[in-house]
């Protein structure tokens, strides 16, 4: 079967599997849902009240019926009600997602702005000292967890400049673009560091491969300048693996940067998941996790489709 068609057909199937997984996972959490919802107050319920609450939330039905109802709601965009926020889960996601999206985009821009030139530079100077320096930095960057970068950045800012990143109330982009950028630049740097390192390594490797290709040698022998050969012949092809990598990393970032959002007190999707898990708000965990998996799969699907469009060999090859 055609690769693109197969990928498109797989998407809803995997998504269905994900919904079953999330549904069952939440029900494996110890303790019943009513107790989890009400906390210590659940001890005050009479058995009759407990039963009627269970009936209200449909918890007296078996799992199959519960799942079917939940799925029916999902299809209509109803992700349930969050107990801790007293709001529909979909509304909470709609409020938090723009921040996560902005942070992911900013991190990607930083990663590409640093990683791409660094990778190309290193490839054109392969095995020389400057290449080695770039590679060492890339290796260190890739080995440093984003929360370590975040903490070190805060430390440098506080000791070197006597200031701290603005935390507390989050300023949306539409309200104050500069204030918003000031708030997001450090978290984006923390997330972008390892990302940039990965881009550097993959761009360098791809560029090295391509620079040894016959058509590049032909272009050189025709007398084209090094810069022209790199920009017009090598770079466009070296971009294919970079696009793939960036897409996958972007998909990860859309899942929310749990720790970085926590460190910088940013109200994004990642922080909601963490809080929901800590507060046992199961409808929220269930809804947000499903939303994140959906984004992740969707971005991966788009990356695969883009890859197939860029490289015709994939379209007809095996999966």
């Amino acid at each position: 079967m055609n690769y693109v068609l197969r990928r498109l057909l797989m998407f809803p199937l995997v998504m269905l599997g994900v919904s079953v997984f999330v549904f069952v996972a939440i029900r494996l959490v110890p303790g019943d849902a009513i107790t989890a919802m009400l906390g210590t107050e659940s001890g005050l319920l009479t058995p009759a009240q407990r039963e009627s609450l269970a009936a209200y939330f449909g918890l007296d039905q078996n799992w199959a019926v519960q799942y079917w109802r939940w799925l029916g709601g999902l299809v209509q965009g109803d992700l349930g009600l969050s107990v801790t926020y007293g709001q529909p889960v979909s509304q909470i996601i709609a409020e938090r997602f723009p921040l996560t999206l902005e942070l992911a985009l900013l991190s990607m821009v930083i990663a590409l702005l640093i990683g791409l030139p660094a990778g190309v530079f290193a490839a054109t100077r392969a095995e020389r000292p400057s290449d080695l320096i770039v590679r060492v930095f890339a290796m260190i960057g890739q080995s440093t967890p984003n929360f370590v970068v975040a903490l070190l950045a805060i430390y440098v800012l506080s000791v070197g400049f006597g200031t701290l990143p603005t935390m507390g109330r989050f300023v949306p982009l539409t309200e104050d673009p500069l204030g918003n950028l000031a708030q997001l630049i450090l978290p984006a740097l923390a997330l972008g560091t390892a990302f940039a390192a990965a881009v550097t390594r993959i761009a360098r490797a791809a560029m090295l491969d391509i620079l040894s290709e016959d058509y590049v040698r032909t272009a050189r022998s025709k007398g084209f300048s090094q810069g022209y050969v790199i920009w017009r012949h090598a770079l466009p092809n070296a971009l294919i693996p970079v696009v793939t990598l960036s897409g996958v990393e972007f998909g990860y970032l859309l899942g929310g940067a749990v720790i970085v959002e926590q460190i910088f007190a940013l109200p994004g999707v990642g922080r909601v998941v963490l809080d929901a898990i800590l507060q046992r708000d199961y409808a929220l965990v269930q809804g947000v996790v499903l939303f994140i998996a959906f984004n992740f799969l969707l971005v991966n699907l788009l990356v695969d489709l883009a890859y197939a469009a860029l490289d015709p060999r994939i379209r007809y090859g095996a999966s």
Partner: protein
Amino acid sequence: MSFLRALLRHSSGRIGAIIIAVFAVAAILGLAGLTPHDPLAQDRLARLQAPGARYWMGTDLFGRDILSRLMVGIGQSFAVALLSVGLATSVGTVLGLTAAWFGRLWDGAVMRAMDVLLSFPAILLALLIVAIMGPGLVTSVVAIAIVYTPIFTRVVRGPALSLKTRSFVDAARTFGSSRRYILTRHLLANLVAPLTVQITLALAWALLTEAALSFLGLGAQPPNPSLGLMLSDSRNLMESAPWMLVFPALVIMLAVLGFNLLGDALRDLFDPRTRRALA
């Protein structure tokens, strides 16, 4: 032996091996209780002390020795990483091999299940498992193992599919070799190279995930020292006691770097194209 020599001749292999060896020694000493000070003992007169002759890496808010705590923390992180990656490798290898060998329904079921697990960013899946099992070191092992099992399943299944059709496997079948013998002696033996590379890289990710979970308070529980928790503790004190931030940060970075360097070197050594260039 010659392979080890080749690894040590490879520049990043050498550096990676040295880093990991140093940390392994620290980890073993830490787990054996052979630390300079008791990692839990509180020296109230020496709170937040800067690195010096008595406390080489300084002390924390409770006057506990950072070096001793780091050694135990490294020991626990390495133990969690080794156990979880060991578990993921075993389960992933069995799933990948049997999926490739039996094909059809079993292959489809296994690979779709792996697709589902791969639909979550690693830390999110780990968080979900922590929610089910409750925080702790055992949970960290299970969570990290589940997160990385699909990767091993894929790494094994792909090459196993092509190995299955090779003539030496057909030959083994005609000789009457048992299925188990073929799977372990013919298929698995040929998968050692990709698996070794993947295990080394997975150890780096496992260290990161473990540190992330304990940073969030969902891994090792206090007063148990762990790298992530130590970093988390440093957050409000980094200006007055930067050593609380710098040493754990360096340890995590170097440990992950060590495994990454080793993984890169192994990949070079196992890859026939680069091996020729290195020889």
